[in-house]
């Protein structure tokens, strides 16, 4: 008994040593990969940094003080950017939800549905929002509409993956209870999974909305209208002072959305205690 016991203990200790060695090896390899990434990208090419600070300083000086004289012309692009972000986020989230259910491994067990859906979400996500912007500007013309479509497409790819992972981590007990009572798969999704994951979905969607507001601005650069177009135009006309004023307006808007978003998220997640 005691001989076999000490043998077992020795085996467990040996297993612990093996794990430590593996962790050390893994860490060393990780550090090597990260370092070579920095070197390959030229981040340690110190000569390139010499001109950077004076140039940025000159640009900053040219942009001071901010010029708000054209403020009356900014209302429309501001609203365009805001509505693009809201519509793009909601449309993206609504499409993401059913796709996420199909992609969740604990909900759809056959890989013949799950794999293609996961691949599809991957493609939506892999193509940058800016490229989607170019594609949709070509497809439906200039203005906020291609912006909404581009935001929604990329949002579906990102939220779909995230929603699916949230669904995969849901507690199975309440769903089992429903299945034991003869509730269908769709019913389990509606009555057990959705109520459990809803706060997380809202949380991530609001976060994504904040992201989409900034993305909507850059989409303006490829012709999707809004505040971004104004900023790019100001830069092209060397109106750096107007551009800096516009950037301040954008900053105020993003801050406002962050505050609103934080409030919404607190309302949904705040009372989880207990």
């Amino acid at each position, binding site marked *: 008994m005691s001989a076999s016991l000490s043998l077992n203990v020795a085996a467990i200790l040996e297993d612990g040593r093996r794990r430590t060695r593996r962790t050390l090896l893994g860490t060393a390899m990780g550090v090597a990969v990260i370092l070579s990434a920095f070197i390959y990208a030229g981040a340690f090419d110190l000569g390139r940094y010499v001109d950077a600070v004076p140039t940025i300083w000159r640009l900053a000086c040219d942009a001071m003080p901010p010029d708000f004289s054209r403020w009356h012309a900014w209302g429309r692009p501001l609203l365009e950017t805001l509505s693009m972000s809201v519509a793009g986020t909601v449309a993206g989230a609504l499409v993401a939800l059913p796709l996420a259910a199909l992609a969740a491994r604990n909900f759809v067990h056959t890989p013949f549905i799950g794999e293609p859906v996961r691949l599809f979400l991957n493609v939506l996500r892999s193509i940058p929002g800016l490229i989607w912007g170019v594609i949709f500007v070509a497809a439906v013309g200039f203005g906020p509409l291609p912006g909404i479509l581009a935001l929604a497409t990329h949002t579906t790819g990102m939220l779909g993956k995230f929603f699916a992972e949230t669904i995969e981590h849901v507690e199975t*007990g*309440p769903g089992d*209870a429903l299945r*034991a*009572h*003869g509730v269908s798969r769709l019913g389990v999704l509606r*009555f*057990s999974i959705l109520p459990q994951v809803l706060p997380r979905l809202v949380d991530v969607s609001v976060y994504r909305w904040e992201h989409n507001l900034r993305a909507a601005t850059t989409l303006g650069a490829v012709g999707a209208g809004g505040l971004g177009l104004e900023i790019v135009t100001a830069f092209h006309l060397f109106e750096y002072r107007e551009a800096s004023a516009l950037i301040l307006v954008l900053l105020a808007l993003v801050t406002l959305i962050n505050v609103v978003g934080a409030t919404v998220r607190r309302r949904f997640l705040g*009372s989880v205690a207990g």
Partner: protein
Amino acid sequence: MNALTIGSQAWRPALTIVGLSVMRGGRPILNEISTAFAEGTITAVVGPSGVGKTTLMNVLNGLVAPQAGRVAVAGLGGLGEPGVLREMRRRTAMVFQDHALIGRLPAIDNVLLGLADTRHPLSLLPWPRAARERAALALADVGLLSRATARTDTLSGGERQRVGIARALVRAPRLILGDEPFASVDPVLARRLGGELRRLVVRDGLTAVLVLHQLQLARVLADRIVGLSGGRVAFDGPAGAFDAEAEAAIFSAPAPNGDRVLSPDNS
């Protein structure tokens, strides 16, 4: 089908199990189990931890498919036959060990989930008034009406268990399956809830199959006791016949995973 005898009375079996075997991860959990559960009675399933009591419950409610054997429902047929499982589930209510409630919903919404099979999954309508009334009455049955609107995760373990029982009662079931339904309530309350269940079983002629941890409660509450040991039925008889000797035989046998269970678990 043969009649079961408890005392001098003969009972009609509501559920009959013949030669049931379940493997999990290559390990046999249940090994050619045969027994029957009589209509209008409470049967307690007892046995050491890991012996497959929960697995047996999950076979009965269709969550686990057996490798061999047959579960027959009186008047319906075998569980594997088309349509039988659905009809069986419609008239069954299940009480789970770990409550299986959604913490962020109010207690009454969790009770309403017991009626989820009566609604279309895509309906955006709120729960009908009649359903809410039934749920409220079910909560009153377990003495929790005053906490109906409280978030379930703010309730105590015992209160949550009562919500789980209310979710079963709201279905007005013919068959109640309970996996340690009184595991997290104190002995006094367990007696009370057990007595309440007993009253419903007698009044409505229900059938209850309960996995019970507390052997004292099993003796008081159940009409019959089925004792599992080593994946087999080691005792199957009236609760009155489940004496210290039968108890010792079940709880001192080696558990299926090879570890010995040292002391009987009869808190």
